[in-house]
């Protein structure tokens, strides 16, 4: 047998250095690998909550909506409140991804994936609630325009139907936007995976190689989707607000509702991004990527939208007084001093008073403080919807028809289950796909190094 050529022996003795992987790839993909106790404990809690809520919902479906706390005249309760809450939470992702993209706010790159993920799962959670609310879940398709033996079509003049179209469009566009952004990062995962994960990533990355042609189509698609998503995100919560504002219920029939709801949604959504990303950053050691600077910028958004919410709360009370319509005046008096005073003052304190602390820079960059504040903001935003829906319905025109609504245990379990449902998807996502948009982080990093080299070359009087 002939000896191997000398070059082959040399190659075997000195194998070429393994190409250095990017630090961003290593750090961010590390989240998907290994074992993290806090993650497992959170997942087990989430699964338990989902299981309990599913069993409760099964019981409600068997028994009927009587087990919920509905009582005349209040037939929109926790389920509709929670629907509006989760739709609102879903707004921050699109705002960060689409609107800040159009404004070329590069700081969004570290948090946009987390926010988009949150959006998709929040809207998925929200979409369950109209179905839960109708009681007979299997009849949900009555909401859609479909040919039927009764020759009936849906009522296109109803805001409830507009909502069906708005929410489904928002869900579809959010999912598409999310998946389009994810493809290059799945390709990164594919190139570093082995076994069954490699097969999954290979299929999902759809032949992505980062060629110039692919990036060009991708960049333009992201731009066009941002252009579509921007008015869409504003329209969706406006349409949700019209579910109320198109009626003549005192406290609902207000022209300010659309901008009021949109600002509230962005406010609550940003707060939820902080609540979700603070533990993710801490547990998975992502501090080099999600920095205090990102949280400070989010704090500024939270402060700004809190001021809009505060203005809207004040404007509602002012218009109720200034209109001299006694039904409006009574409705708003009852909000602050009636049987639901607790929820109203929680709403005002958590959403308007407490966020004013963010004028102080030290607090804007104090992460534990931000986490606690944003937790209370989320609570306040849930109470805001409670106030709008319950106080208005329970105190309509005729005092003889007034009533009191107290959420039942069934509703509270399903509400808790919705947080577990959302967390379950989010936690599972964390272990499968990158929680930070790796290619977008690299874009900034490589650009910075390229410019630094240019500066160095100019400073030394040479040219590269």
């Amino acid at each position, binding site marked *: 047998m002939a000896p191997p050529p000398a070059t082959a022996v040399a190659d075997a003795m000195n194998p070429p250095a393994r*190409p*250095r*992987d*990017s630090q961003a*790839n290593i750090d961010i993909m590390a989240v998907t690998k290994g074992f993290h106790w806090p993650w497992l404990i959170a997942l087990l809690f989430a699964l338990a909550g989902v299981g309990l809520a599913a069993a409760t919902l099964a019981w409600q479906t068997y028994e009927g909506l009587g087990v919920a706390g509905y009582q005349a005249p209040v037939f929109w309760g926790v389920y509709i409140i929670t629907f509006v809450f989760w739709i609102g939470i879903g707004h921050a992702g699109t705002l960060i991804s689409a609107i800040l993209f159009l404004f070329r706010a590069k700081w969004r790159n570290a948090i946009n994936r987390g926010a988009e993920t949150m959006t998709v799962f929040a809207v998925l959670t929200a979409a369950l609630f109209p179905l839960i609310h109708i009681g007979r879940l299997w009849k949900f398709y009555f909401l859609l*325009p479909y040919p039927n033996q009764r*020759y*009936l*079509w*849906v*009522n296109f*003049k109803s805001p409830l*139907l*507009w909502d069906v*179209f*708005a929410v489904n*469009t928002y869900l*579809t*566009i959010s999912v*598409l*936007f999310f*998946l389009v952004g994810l*493809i290059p990062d799945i390709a*990164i995962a594919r190139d*570093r995976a082995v076994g069954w994960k490699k097969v999954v990533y*290979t299929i999902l990355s*759809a*032949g*992505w*190689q*980062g*060629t*110039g*042609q*692919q*990036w*060009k*189509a*991708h*960049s*333009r*698609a992201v731009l*066009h989707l941002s252009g*579509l*998503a921007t*008015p*869409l995100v504003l*329209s969706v919560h406006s*349409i949700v607000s019209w579910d109320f504002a198109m009626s003549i219920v005192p406290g609902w029939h207000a022209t300010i509702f659309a901008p009021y709801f949109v600002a509230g949604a962005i406010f609550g959504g940003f707060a939820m991004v902080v609540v979700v990303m603070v533990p993710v950053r801490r547990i998975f050691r992502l501090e080099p990527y999600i920095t205090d600077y990102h949280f400070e910028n989010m704090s500024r958004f939270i402060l700004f939208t809190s001021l809009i919410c505060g203005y809207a709360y004040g404007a509602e009370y002012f218009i109720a007084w200034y209109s001299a319509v006694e039904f409006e005046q009574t409705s708003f008096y009852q909000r602050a001093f009636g049987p639901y005073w607790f929820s109203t003052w929680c709403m005002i304190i958590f959403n308007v008073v407490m966020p004013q602390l963010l004028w102080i820079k030290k607090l804007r960059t104090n992460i534990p403080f931000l986490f606690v504040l944003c937790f209370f903001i989320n609570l306040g935003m849930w109470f805001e919807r409670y106030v709008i829906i319950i106080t208005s319905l329970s105190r309509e025109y005729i005092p003889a028809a007034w009533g009191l609504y107290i959420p039942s245990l069934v509703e509270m379990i399903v509400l808790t289950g919705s947080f577990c449902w959302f967390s379950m998807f989010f936690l599972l996502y964390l272990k499968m796909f990158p929680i930070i948009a790796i*290619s*977008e982080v*690299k*874009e900034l990093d*490589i*650009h910075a*190094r*390229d410019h630094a*080299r*240019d500066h160095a070359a100019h400073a030394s009087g040479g040219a*590269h």
Partner: protein
Amino acid sequence: MAELVSVYEFPSDVATVVRKLKARGFTDLTTYSPAPFEEIEMAEDPRPSKVRAFHLIGSLVGVVVGFGIQIWMSMDWPIKIAGKNIAAIPPMWIIGFELQTLFGGILVVAGLAILAGLYPRPLDRHYSPRFSAEEFGVVVRCEDRDAAEVESLMRGHNAKEVKRAEVH
């Protein structure tokens, strides 16, 4: 035919070498990059992307479908609501807008899949995981007699490596 594969560290070098190669008539080239860089996209193909055509078609179809189904279904089961016309146009703008966005978005993604060739398939022969790390690749297909010139252009613009591959 020869195929030359070069590796770079910076996007500005890639953009410059692509422009120079194209100016010399070497237009059969492919770039690989770990992130989107506009300078590379513009150097490779400065024409506007056709994604916008997909967007326009999708949006037009969506708005026509949106108004179309509402007008037809309202006329098919006529019922007077709140004194409005049977097919009242103003409230139809909302669903018209939503379907414009829905169809526009779906067609944009379809356009991306078509234009970027996004479907499960084998990767290019010269693709390397290095290009999903932090390095850039430029692959040029040229005549054998031009290979030396292409290689010299590549090396003259800070190529870290240049390899010549066999063309099958």
